[in-house]
């Protein structure tokens, strides 16, 4: 794929690209021209970021500066679906590719867009589609329930799981944590990450998870390297994410992050769960004590 785009650009083509990108940063214009001349796909992220930035309101643009890949296109950047079409169209024009409408549906973050276009240009298979799990399904799939369920929706991939929880303010424990000053407890944040990890184990099929995990046989085992950096209060919307580090029955360990908007809230180097598959002997409960999830 990349090879087919390598060619000497005519001055007219070069002018056309420059004109299409006239409101993008000089670096992204240079990167686009250079990609078209050399086929060097390393330059793609610069072009994509430059194009996305061009469509953002000036007050939103600084958000792209660090950790852009995690930013959600709609929620964090205020981009609507029509603007995403504008972004994709400009990408098509400048990188000389064509993208099918159906392929756009699962692009949720800046990182998703970058990976997607990178795969297209390199001719690699597209990353697996994310599985969205609404609250009703979460309720069915997890052993947890209100008032101790801290996930409101979730998106699963092999490589990671994401979820959200909006602090309503009427959670029972906020009455005492603290008196007259409701602060979401760090222990509950850890619990929320744990619940997301349980959901991942129950819903994922992979080499290391060849059979259905029994939702009633997943328990907390240990955690390590927890750092909290921001108070969270009623009204905050927490974005949770976990990435599997090592999964080998009966142990699974994950790395976890929590953000509130674009601000970092908490980081867990390692959260370990112990689990068992459906129909296995009752080995887990004896091995690993601890509360579910």
């Amino acid at each position, binding site marked *: 794929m990349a090879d087919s785009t390598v060619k000497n650009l005519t001055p007219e083509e070069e002018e056309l690209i420059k004109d299409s990108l006239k409101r993008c940063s000089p670096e992204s214009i240079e990167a686009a021209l250079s990609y078209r001349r050399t086929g060097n796909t390393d330059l793609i992220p610069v072009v994509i970021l430059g194009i996305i930035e061009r469509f953002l*309101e000036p007050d939103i643009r600084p958000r792209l500066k660090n950790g852009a890949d995690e930013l959600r296109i709609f929620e964090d950047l205020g981009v609507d679906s*029509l603007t995403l079409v*504008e972004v994709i*169209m400009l990408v098509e*024009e400048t990188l000389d590719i064509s993208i099918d409408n159906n392929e756009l549906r699962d692009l949720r973050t800046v990182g998703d867009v970058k990976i997607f276009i990178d795969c297209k240009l390199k001719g690699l298979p597209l990353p697996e589609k994310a599985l969205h799990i609404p609250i009703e399904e979460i309720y069915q799939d997890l052993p947890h329930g209100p008032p101790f369920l801290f996930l409101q929706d979730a998106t699963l991939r092999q490589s990671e799981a994401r979820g959200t929880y909006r602090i309503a303010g009427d959670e029972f424990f906020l009455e005492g944590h603290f008196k007259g000053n409701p602060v979401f407890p760090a222990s509950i944040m850890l619990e929320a990450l744990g619940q997301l990890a349980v959901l991942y184990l129950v819903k994922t099929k992979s080499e290391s998870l060849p059979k259905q995990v029994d939702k009633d046989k997943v328990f907390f085992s240990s955690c390590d390297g927890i750092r909290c950096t921001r108070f969270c209060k009623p009204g905050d919307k927490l974005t949770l994410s976990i990435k599997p580090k090592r999964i080998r029955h009966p142990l699974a360990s994950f790395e976890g992050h929590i953000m509130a908007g674009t601000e970092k809230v908490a980081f867990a180097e390692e959260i370990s769960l112990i689990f068992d598959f459906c129909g296995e002997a009752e080995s887990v409960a004896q091995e690993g004590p601890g509360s579910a999830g």
Partner: protein
Amino acid sequence: MPQVAITGLGFVTSIGNEQVTVLDNLRELRHGIDYFPDFAGADSPVKLAGTVKDFSVNSCDPEDWTYPDAYRVRREVLRGLAPHGLFAYCAMQQAIEDAGLSEEEVSNLDTGIFTASAGSAKMLHSHLERMNRHGVNRCSPLGIVNSIVGTLTFNLASAYHIKGASAGFVSACASSGHALGYAWDEITLGRQKRMFVVGGEDGNRESILPFAGMRALSQCKDPEIASRPFDKDRDGFVGTGGSVVMVLEDEELARKRGATIYARMVGWGQASDGYNVAISHPDGDGLANAMRRAAACAKVSLKDINYINAHAPSTPIGDLSEIRALKQTFNGDRPAISSTKALTGHGLSLASIMEAAFTVLGLRHNFMPGSAHIMSLDPEATGLRIIKETEDKGPALAMSNSSGFGGANVSLIFQHI
């Protein structure tokens, strides 16, 4: 039945982009007509237009546009606008400030918006060209909403978070008269408490020059006299663009919130010629019926009308038709008559509300603008009191007329408060 008060005005016109300038130019009869760069090519025998100043909207890419610093339009709004959409966005902002409305008063179930524009031929043309050249999937995603008829309604209703009625009216040069009339209905029927009424036109090569095909445009090269309604040597209209916004309110509500009331709209009427697709009725029968119906609706006697802002676009046939309509309607009564198109040019879908707004300014500030640029009055108009100079005496009751293609005629009546 609720009374309808006018409580706010906004202007982007060839004779000014804020109310004080418009008022001054209107009273002093200073026109806004000039050589128009869009018409400079050797292909066009038409050279003049009523030009909107301080806006540069010639590109088909809204992000290229420049406009006065008083306005700030976010990209997500701007990308959906036609040139006249930007004019209207700005006029709307003026009207809201002028009426002293809060965000909540603009955005609620009892507040609606009616608009009138012919869409944007320029934007539509550019999109279709792009589609034909680059393929269907490369159409701009906002290409439809920033070009088709209705563009004003879609954009203003969303940008200003309108929750009540929203719709557009299309009857060519009577369009914004219909929008005003039906907005008046909404309030008097108790369906809405407050209505924004908006008229707009691009006023560019694509929206004006095609009228040359029917020989409706003036080919005069002198801006000082090109638009001269009721003159015997008039040779066609001079086109213009811009936008005017008027706020109509249930008078009781307006008084309760302490709003300044410009005037009261007391009724309107419409009737059609049933005659020709583009030529007005030779005796002005449709317009005469519209004026009678307006008076009946307003429950006023025609002889109590003191001033008429005529449609008279400065075309040989159009002005004559209206002269005859006025003669048969006002048989013996002598209201003052003028056509302010001499100053602005003809705003097509914008014309009716622009002239209604001028009429309302006259009611508020006690004057009747003169009919400028008449060197020798059309002999057919003998007997009508066409005023060549501004008169510093305000009307008690004033009428504003509009006629559109297909013989659509609208007449609006306003009352001094």
